């Protein structure tokens, strides 16, 4: 199961990088979303998969059933929230940029360079 998800992570990164290289700002942002999801999945995978097991058990129950590691789940939750905030901000920025300049083309963004 881990190997399949690892391949999915790779695929998501591929799609993300491909979209990052496009000229449209919107596609660029979609690429960022793909990459951020790939990263979240990677962090989630880092503890290994323990399907169908709880992360918490009653204190003193003494069961020896396998436990899921709660920490990566908490990390991913935080990362998803942060990612949400950032994606909204980038979309708002893109929207304002489109409103003032009327362009979605990254090649037009050369004024502040050099």
């Amino acid at each position, binding site marked *: 199961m881990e190997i399949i998800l690892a391949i999915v992570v790779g695929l998501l990164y591929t799609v993300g990088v491909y979209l*990052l290289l496009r000229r449209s*700002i919107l596609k*660029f942002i979609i690429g*960022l979303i793909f*990459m*951020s999801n790939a*990263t*979240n999945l*990677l*962090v*989630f*995978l*880092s*503890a290994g998969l323990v399907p169908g097991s709880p992360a918490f058990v009653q204190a003193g129950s003494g069961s020896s059933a396998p436990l899921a590691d709660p*920490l*990566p789940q908490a*990390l991913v939750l*935080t*990362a998803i929230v*942060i990612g949400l*905030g*950032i994606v909204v*901000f*980038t979309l708002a*920025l*893109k929207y*304002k*940029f489109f409103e*003032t*300049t009327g362009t979605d083309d990254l090649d037009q*963004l050369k*004024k*502040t*360079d*050099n």
Partner: protein
Amino acid sequence: MITFVALPILLPFIFIISLLVFRSDRLAGWLGVFGSGLLILLSGYLFILVQKHGVIALQMGGWEAPFGITLVVDFLSAIMLVVAALIVFSIAIYALRFLPKTIRLNRFFIFFFGLTMGLNGAFVTGDVFNLFVWFEVMLMSSFVLITLGRTKEQLEGGIKYMSLNLIGSLLFLAGVGLLYGKTGTLNMAHLAEILKNDNQAILMNTSAVLFFVAFGIKAAVFPLYFWLPASYHTPNITISSLFAGLLTKVGVYTFIRFFTLFFVHDQQFWHQLLLITAGFTMVAGGMAAAAHYETRRILSYHIISQIGYMIMGLGIFTPLAIAGAIFFTIHNMIAKTNTFLVAGMIAKARGTFELKEVGGLFKQSPFLAILFMVPAFALAGVPPISGFFAKFILIKAGLENGNYVITAVAILTGMLTLYSMIKIWNEAFLKAQPANEYASTPFKKLKFAEYFPSVLLGATSILMGLFAAYLFDFTMNAANQLIDPSLYIETVLKG
């Protein structure tokens, strides 16, 4: 007493709340200055505490060390907190006079404190994932700050700033994931303990490379710096100076923290890589700065060039070199912010940042010339001021350790720095004002609130030069603490 460790984070948080509640702009100004003033006192107190105890650790929520989030202050964190508070304070005063009417002070100070909170959090935390969270807090505040006012250039610069920094954050997070997968912990002290005796530590290189690129983007080192000169000159000068003094230096701080505390395996490869990066960073930044004629752009490339020195100190990796890197970082934070502040004053006097369009300022205001001279001399490394000692320590460390190439590069880059500082001096102060539209702008006498921040930072630079011996002793202690982190590990893990 131990709760004080969390206060550098909580204090900006309290001020954010009060700014959200009280929306008056006049009050926002006072709150901003008052809050950052308190921050100086607080960091000063922490600094004294740390000198007494060595390392202080707070286990948040009472969760024992490897399981909960730990906040740690050691010598390096303490000095960074103090310097950052000083810069934040001077920018708060500066903002009162230099922000345009289109930017509401209330808005500015909310995100200003957001940035400060993230910054202090990054300095204080002892947990890798928590560090990521503080980076994001800082990054989001800086996104908003860089687009405040919403001019066309700002939005364009904002997109460039955002895109590269977000990719950096994603790499950071991927690094965190791999680190956790290998070691099963994210507490820095625990990581150090685990990796110290791990004969498979070389596997950490995958994770370390991701962190290297992520911090490289944040700190703007050689092949990854392109976001910085494309965006730093777009916002208002207040915001530029805030970023110039603080943001990239957090990247350097994390470099020093990670590569002295737990990525200490495979030293030859990493130090070689750090040195090569440092050399190219210095030269690329210095050359680009020499080619430009807009103050903010020159100074932006300078930031990059000087990041190279700090990375160089880390790459040489002797106690003396790391002390030099710390000395250089704090000197540079202060002097760099100061040059940006003075650039703002020049632009206010003449109405433009283009050096070709201005001139004759020395005659009109010798006082402004002195204000510029102090940080410029400091950056160029003229003896009585802080920069000379910073560079001297680094070069001495390089020669002692036999890193002749990087030392030569550092000395040559010093020449380039001097050249660009002289260029600003000649163009803005010495040459006669060209006959153009800006010539008729009447020169207004500087008000107290306008020059006070620069005087404060300039005086600090000079004092750092005069009392360099004391400061050097302190940075040496900090470096020894970094090279041998047993006290850090013990304090965090054994409480």
